[in-house]
Structure formats: C-alpha cells, structure tokens
C-alpha cells in the first residue's frame, strides 16, 4: 500500500510514517506544493494525506488537479483549519475525509484503513478477521456466521481497533473517536470503559476469542 504524506511539518510527517510503517504501508513524502504536484502527477497512491497550507500553494489546488486527471487515489485532508467551510470545500472538491489537527495517529490510521478499503472493495466491503466478519456498508458484525448486535458506538470502536491492530490505543484516543470534538471537555473518560466492556462482552458471548487486551493505565490493544 502506497501512501503519500503531503505535509510541510517534517516531524509530523515522520511520526505518521513511523506509526504506519508496521502496517504494510509504504510512505512517501512531499513537503512543498511543487513536490506534491510532481509526485501526484507521476505516481498513483492508495491514499494521499493532504495538508492544506503548504509552502508554494494551496493544498486544495492539488486536490483539484487529482480530480481533473480523474485519479482514483483516496485523499484525506489533514488541516489545522477546523472550520465547517474548509471541511465542506474540501469534501466538495472530492476529498474522502477531513481530519483536523491535532489528531491521534490511531484516528488517522483508522481513517486511512477505511478509505483504502472503500476504494478497493467498493460495494462488497466486508472485513474478515479470523472468526469475525464485519460488513462496513451495512454496519453489521457476524461471528461464526452468527449476527452480533452492536450499538453504533461499539461498532465505531471495533473499527478503530481493526484499523489499529497491534497498537496501543490511549483512552484519550478512544474518547475522541467516540465523542469527536467535545472529548476534551469531558473530565473523565470512564464512559470509554463502559462501551468497551459491553462490546467485549457481546463479542465473547458470540464465541470470539479475546483479542482485545487491556494495557494497564494506558488503554487497549487489539492483538492479531
């Protein structure tokens, strides 16, 4: 899987690449508008991470170029601008997702995973993982062909874990994934425990082996 990280902040680009490296992803970098245009024109990527404020130009122009050339690369905008207008503008031009900085790497990884799956599998987007079967479009989960009824939040959590296998996910990352923008206004993230406890119980009851490990004091890890 090839990923292009268009980001002028080298440190951040490096961290993203380091986090993704274990996952069979091959990351390339572009730090300026010019570099980005060249790489995008010359190669195809499974997913492009696009910062909007770049030295040399507006990131949205890169997105427009991609769409004009009818390229199928998935695009996730990662921007410090967190206004509805920018989000709408980005998605209208054809970005697949929009993530405001600062974000957790786990959140980004889950979204990359989801974008790539959508691009590759289109309408029959079913993830099979051992005895687990997840239909991304219908948002249903089956274990050994038996349906498991998860709430929306439990389903979202499961996807976050699937997109971050063998990674330690902090409670903070899980809380942000569940409550979005307001997570940092909540003083304790205990509600995360409740959702994970419920999800785990439902999965175990349906005959799933315990892949989800608790890392004391920190968070959780899906071992696969």
């Amino acid at each position, binding site marked *: 899987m090839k990923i292009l990280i268009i980001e002028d*902040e080298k*440190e*951040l680009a490096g*961290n*993203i690449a*380091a*986090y993704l490296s274990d996952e069979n992803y091959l990351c390339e970098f572009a730090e300026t508008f010019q570099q980005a245009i060249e790489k995008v024109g010359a190669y195809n990527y499974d997913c492009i991470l696009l910062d909007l*404020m770049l030295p040399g130009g507006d990131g949205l122009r890169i997105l427009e170029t991609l769409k004009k050339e009818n390229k199928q690369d998935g695009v996730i905008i990662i921007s*410090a*601008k*967190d*206004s*509805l207008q920018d989000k709408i503008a980005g998605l209208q031009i054809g970005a697949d997702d929009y993530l*405001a*900085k*600062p*974000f*957790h*790497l*786990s959140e980004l990884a889950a979204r990359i995973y989801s974008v790539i799956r959508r691009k590759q599998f289109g309408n029959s987007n079913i993830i099979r993982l051992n005895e687990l079967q997840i239909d991304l479009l219908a948002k249903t989960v089956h274990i050994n062909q038996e349906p498991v009824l998860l709430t929306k939040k439990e389903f979202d959590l499961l996807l976050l874990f699937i997109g971050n296998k063998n*990674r*330690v996910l*902090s*409670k*903070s*990352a899980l809380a*942000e994934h569940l*409550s979005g923008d*307001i*997570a*940092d*206004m*909540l*003083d*304790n993230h*205990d*509600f995360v425990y*409740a*959702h994970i406890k419920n999800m785990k119980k439902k999965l175990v009851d349906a005959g799933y082996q315990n892949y989800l490990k608790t*890392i*004391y*004091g*920190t*968070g959780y890890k899906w071992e696969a």
Partner: protein
Amino acid sequence: MSKLLNKPLKAFAIYALLVLACSIPVYYLIVDYIWRNELDEYNQIVRRRIETGLNKLNLNETDWNKTITLWNQTQPGTTIARSPADKPLPDSTYTVMRQDPMHTTEDLERFRGLSAYILIKGKPYHLNVEINVEEAHETVFAIAAVTFVFFIILLAGFVLLNRNIASKIWKPFHSTLDRLKSFDLNSHKNIDLEKSEIEEFEQLNEVLRQLIEKNISVFRQQKEFTENASHELQTPLAVLKSKIDLLMQNETLTEEQSELIASLNLPISRVSRINKNLLLLAKIENQQFAEDEKIDMSELLQQNLEFLEEHLVARNNTVETEIHSDISIRANKSLVEIMLVNLLLNAIRHNPVDGLIKIELTNSRLIISNTGEVALNPQTLFKRFIASSTSTPSSGLGLAIVHEIGNRYGWKVSYTFQEGFHQFSVQF
C-alpha cells in the same frame, strides 16, 4: 429628528411671512397716496368744468339764484355759494368721514373734498366738490387678503420645490446611504458608490471608499492573524500528540511510564481546545458566521441530549426535561449547537454525582439548571478565563462563548442561583 431640507424651509417660510406682513402697510400708504392725488386732480377737473359751464350761462339775477339753488339740490357732492370775501381765496383739500346722503345706511364713509373759490361773471363763489374714497380699513383688508393669498402660493411653491430638490439632488446621497446599509464587512467586497455630479457628495463618497477599503484590509489582516496563529499552534500540538502516540507503542515501557505518557494527552487536548475556542470567539466577534437558517431547537436539543446521555448516566445524574416541540429560531446552526453543547456540558461537568439537571425549552427561552451549593459570581461568570470553580479543569471560555453567541443574536444570557440550582437561561 427633522430632515435637512425642512430646516431652511421653515426659515424661508418665516422670512417670507415677515416680509409680506411688512409690505401690507407700505402698500396701503402708497395706494392711499396715489388715490388721493388722483381724486384731487379729478376734483380740480370738475371744478374747471363747473366754472367754465356756469360762465357760459347768460341769466338774470333771479334765474341765476334759482339755478344755484337747483344746482345745489340736484348735484350732490358739489355745493356752490356766494363767497363772503370779495376776492377768491386759495384752494384747499380735505378728507372727511361722514354719512353718505345718497345711502340709507348709517355707516360712515370717507370723502375727499376740494374747497375752491371760482369767479363767475366777476363775482367770487365758493365751490365745494366731494368724492367718495374707499375707507382705510377696507383697503388694508383687501391688501392683506391678497398678500395672504400670495403667501400661501409662495409656501406651496417652497414645499413643492423642496420635494423636487430633495428627490433629485439628494438621490446620490440616498443611494450611498442604501449601499452603506447593505454593506457587509464579512463579504470582503468593496462597495461600489454611485458617481455624483455634486462636489460635496463626491467628496463624501471618496472618503467613504477609502475608509471602507482600509477597514476591509484591517479586517482581513485580523482574520488572517487569528487563523494563522491558530494554525501555527495546532501544528506543533499535532506533532506533540503524534509523538505521544508513537511513544506509547514502545513495549519496554513500565506501567508507571505508560501512565505518565498517557496523562500528557489531557493537557494537550486542553491547549488545543483553548486555541480553537479563541479562534471561535474571534470569528463570532468578526461576524464570520453569516448564514442564518431556521433551526428546530426542540430537535437539536434532543439530539445533543441523546449524544451526551452516557455522560449523565456515568455520573448517575437525573435529567428532568420540559421541552416543547416545534420550537424554531433563526440563527447559524453551528453556533447554536456550540451554545447548546457548552451549556449542557457545563451543567454535566459541574453537577455533583447523583445530582439533578433540569432542562426547559419554551418559545421564549431555554433554561438549563444543575444542582449546586453556593451561588457563583454572575459578574465574572461569563468573562474569559475566569474560572468559577477549581474542581474541574476547563478552557475557561465555554460560557464566554455562550455569552458571545447570545450577543450576536440579541439573546439575553443570564445566570441565577435558585433553591439549590445553578440556573442558566437564554431568552430568545
């Protein structure tokens, strides 16, 4: 407040009234003078005619006396009598008020008379000729009436001209005013002021153009500054956050180290939140949320309440709601949602475990209350960065944002402490 053009109109009207009023006695004096002169001349003509006519008669003494008597009876206004003096005396004129013998009315009439001495066949006679003159008060009345009519015509003319001038000459001014009224700094569009032929208006337009241009430029700079500052802060935060995520993957970490690292996430989130909130406040103040739409408040409140439900459950809070359905308002949806979430979270965060939260939404107001012990200071509660409690961390901006959003739409946001409840209300 009166219109600019009405001020001189009033002055003009008063001035015209004064001038016309002063003209009445002047006209009277002139008319009266001319009239008297003309009548005196006329009396002289009558006198000459009588003198010539009588001198032509050839009568004896008896017939002559009879003629004089008859004359005096049949010719009212003139009387002839033998002069007591031997020689003719100089003529004199006079004006007298008396009853008209020809009329039966008792009104006094004014007469202009000539007292002259004529020679008929060498003998001096006294001739008196009188003619009726219009009385002074009648003349004055006539002149005053005419003057008043002219004043009315003048006034009507002033008003009509004024209206005409107002609509024509002030047209560019009103056009400028209309465009200024519809001007929105937020749109970043310079306004196109209509060219005017009138120097003063063109000067005004020129000054306005410069002023607006400068304002737009300052506004843009300010907007760019807040956005750039936010960007500059969010990027290093993003680096920091990603470093923590990476560090957590390290398998050699002890439990204690892991806990320390995980605990870094909270302050980072808070810095990021403060940053976002400052940007939000700047945007609200700069009126960068322009698009208003009709919002179903009842539905929006229910949605947010459902979204936050688990946090209520976690703290074993009870919620009492009285939400009227189909309450709608016109505002920017993002802003209203931010306001609702801030108020709800505020109530949840500061509510004690097992506390009660009351939510009331009616046509005119929204009230969100939570259990509390001591009243907070309403003076500082909505100020920025003044924390009302030390028990929980916050950005210190949540209520300031609620207040600012209220200001934006003219809603009154207030706090009261009643019967053990902190009560925040928004009056629409």
